[in-house]
Every structure is written in C-alpha cells, then in structure tokens.
C-alpha cells in the first residue's frame, strides 16, 4: 500500500528534484513553492492519514507512485479539451485527474464525463480540489500541473503507464445504501432543480417534499447503478424559492432514494473495507469533505485508507460522500472457471 504521508515543502521539493513521481495535496501557498517535476497537486486543508483525519496547512500530503508506474505524461485540459481525455489514456495504466472546485470545468465534467468518448476504457481516478470549510466562497480551490503555477479553470491530469504484468482496479466504498423510502426522479440533468420531480411517479416539488418528510439533508440521494451505489449530496434547500442544489448533478431517468442513516462511520468503514485490500496494493485513495464534516472524522481513522479530503471524488464520474481507491497489482495467474478458454467455450456453446 502506498500510504499518504505529510511532508514539508523542503522534503517534497527534494523528492521532486530526485525524480520521484508524486500525487500531492495541500495548501496553495505550499504547492506554489514546489519546483518543476513529475507531479500534480490540488488544494485542500484536510487529510486522512494513518493517524486519522487531520487539518494541516504547514505540510503537503504525498502519494509517491514512482515504484508503481513506468512513465507519466502530465497535461492540462480546459472544458472543451476534456472531452478528448480518453484519447490520451495509457495503453495499460491509469489516469489521475484533479479538477478545481467550483470552476466551470468542474461543472461541465460532472455533467458530461459519462459521454466523453472512451472514458470508461481505462481507470480514471481523482478528486475535486477544495479549501477549508471556513474559506468556502472567499478562496478559490486550485490545482497544479507539475510546477508552482496555480490553476483555477482547467483540469490537471497525469496519465500513468504501468508494466504489462500489472493491472489497475478502481473501486469505491460507499457507506450509504438506498433507504426503503420513496423513489425520486428528475426530468432534467443538473446541479440544481427548480423543485420539479416525481415521487413514486407522482409530480411533486422536491424542496417541499424534503420539508414535509423532515428529511435529514446530510443523507445523500442514492441511485443504484447496476450494483454501484452512487450518491448525490444535498447542498442547499431554499424554502422560499422551493429550489434544491446538489454537490453533483442528478440525471434524468435515474431513480433515487434517500440513504439509510449511518450511525457509526468508523465502524461502517471497518465493515465495508475489503479485507483483502488492507495492507496490499492501494496506490491512491481519497474521501469526501462531507463525510469528514458530518461524521466528525478529524482525529479518527477510516481503516487503513489515507489520502486527501476532497470536494468531490472521481471514479470515472463525479461522486459525493464516497471513498475512492485505486489498486495496482500483479496480474493474477488465472486457472479458474473464468479463464479465457472457459469464456470462449461458453460463448460458442
């Protein structure tokens, strides 16, 4: 496992100058001091370390992936260029992306990424940069593409090639599952709704529904993507205009339900964490600022996963209140029932 560790600017600078390949997270003032090299970074004030959740503005969180990758290519993409992201995917490897929070590219990525040509053809992992919660609205999240120049309107990307004897897996841990309540659908895609929705097929106002039902808006809406529980978190509910804002877009044609409450986040992480992943091949992971705040994760551990606390997690698409992790492992020798010859025989049977 590539544990994320906090380091000073001097320590990180030395790593970069020695040729290490790094995924970084920290305060803008720290990242802006770093020398050119094989690194990308994003701003955040909060981290999950081996000792638990921490707020730290004097150090940078480092994921050193040098020993996992053969080569990397760092690029910047504006919102139009992002549509061609997959054209630059490595033949075998993964792509790490950091998007500045509250930017146009953040919004367009969230709405459109599932339609980018070929976007699912290789692992796309990353996060949306942020600031401390107290600075939301007064300070712009940034990202960095291999040098100290802060970027607030483009995504930064590291395309990483790995050796052919290794494989990449990208997955999520979501503590939330769909509750047994009403099914909610929206007619249009977007980060906000004028309130129009359908509840169990009946036309309704979503804001009014939330108030009437006394919904705890710290619970996300959850959709079942053929076995993957995908959250959309509630950002604001305006009782006067009866509008609702989200931290990720809702999509027309998707059936959402509010999540079952989670009483003990730390216990739930321990239960959901795949035991075989602990202490093995996790190259990168990140967790959501909403989990951090709502669950009070400062000072608390979330299993053995470490990484930045983010304003949105990316596993092919923008996620909310979800832990994302990427593993790089030796390709297992496969002699079981899923071996290639078995597939062929079933197909042609």
């Amino acid at each position, binding site marked *: 496992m590539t544990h994320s560790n906090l380091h000073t600017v001097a320590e990180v600078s030395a790593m970069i100058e020695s040729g290490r390949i790094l995924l970084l997270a920290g305060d803008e003032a720290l990242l802006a001091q770093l020398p050119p090299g094989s690194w990308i970074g994003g701003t955040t004030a909060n981290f999950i370390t081996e000792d638990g959740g921490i707020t730290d503005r004097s150090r940078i969180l480092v994921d050193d992936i040098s020993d996992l990758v053969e080569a990397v290519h760092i690029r910047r993409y504006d919102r139009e260029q992002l549509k061609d992201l997959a054209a630059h995917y490595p033949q075998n490897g993964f792509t790490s992306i950091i998007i500045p929070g509250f930017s146009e590219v953040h919004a367009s990525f969230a709405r459109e990424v599932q339609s980018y040509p070929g976007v699912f053809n290789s692992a796309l992992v990353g996060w949306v940069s942020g600031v401390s919660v107290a600075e939301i609205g007064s300070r712009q999240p940034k990202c960095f593409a291999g040098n100290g120049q802060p970027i607030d309107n483009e995504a930064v990307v590291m395309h990483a090639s790995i050796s052919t004897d290794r494989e990449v897996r990208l997955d999520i841990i979501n503590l939330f599952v769909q509750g047994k309540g009403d099914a909610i659908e929206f007619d249009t895609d977007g980060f906000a709704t004028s309130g129009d929705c359908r509840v169990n097929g009946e036309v309704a106002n979503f804001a009014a529904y939330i108030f009437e039902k006394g919904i705890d808006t710290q619970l996300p809406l959850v959709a079942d993507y053929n076995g993957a529980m995908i959250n959309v978190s509630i950002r604001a509910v305006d009782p006067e205009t009866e509008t609702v804002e989200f931290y990720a877009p809702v999509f027309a044609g998707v059936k959402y339900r509010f999540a079952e409450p989670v009483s003990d986040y730390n216990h739930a992480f321990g239960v959901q964490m795949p035991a075989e992943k602990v202490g093995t091949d996790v190259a990168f992971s990140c967790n959501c600022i909403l989990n951090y705040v709502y669950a009070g994760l400062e000072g608390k551990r979330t299993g053995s996963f470490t990484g930045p606390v983010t304003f949105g997690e990316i596993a092919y698409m923008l996620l909310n209140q979800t832990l994302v992790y990427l593993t790089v492992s030796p390709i297992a020798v496969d002699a079981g029932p899923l071996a290639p010859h078995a597939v062929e025989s079933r*197909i042609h049977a």
Partner: protein
Amino acid sequence: MIVPPVSHARWRDVASGRIHREWSLLATKILVTRIQRAVAQDQSPATLDRFVGEIHTFFVKNAQLAKADLVAIFA
C-alpha cells in the same frame, strides 16, 4: 481472451437493458447504466448501434479486468 464480435446479439441485449444485472466491475456498472438510460430515451437503431459499439470497445479494451462481466453476458 477473445471477445465476441460486435454483431453478436448479446451486446444489443446489454445496451437495450434486456440483460439487466449487478455487474462486477465498477466501470461496467456505470457505463451500462448510462447506456441503458440513454437507450431508454432514444431507441432508434442508430443510437442502439452506437452504444453497442461503445460497449463492445469497452470489453475489447478491458477483456481481462472485465472477464467476470463478459462471462455473465455470454453465459
């Protein structure tokens, strides 16, 4: 691993939602959900053909990682 050709009818069953299941790989889960949602809104042959091609390309490029889902489609 040999992936069946794009003309195989099972690919259309996946795109159209006739094969509907919990997939194994996260990418398959999200991709197929997005495609089945899009096809539900536009069932024209051209749309279906486009998404069948997208699913097929995905499995060609991820034949090893997605083999459990591949087996599930053609079992």
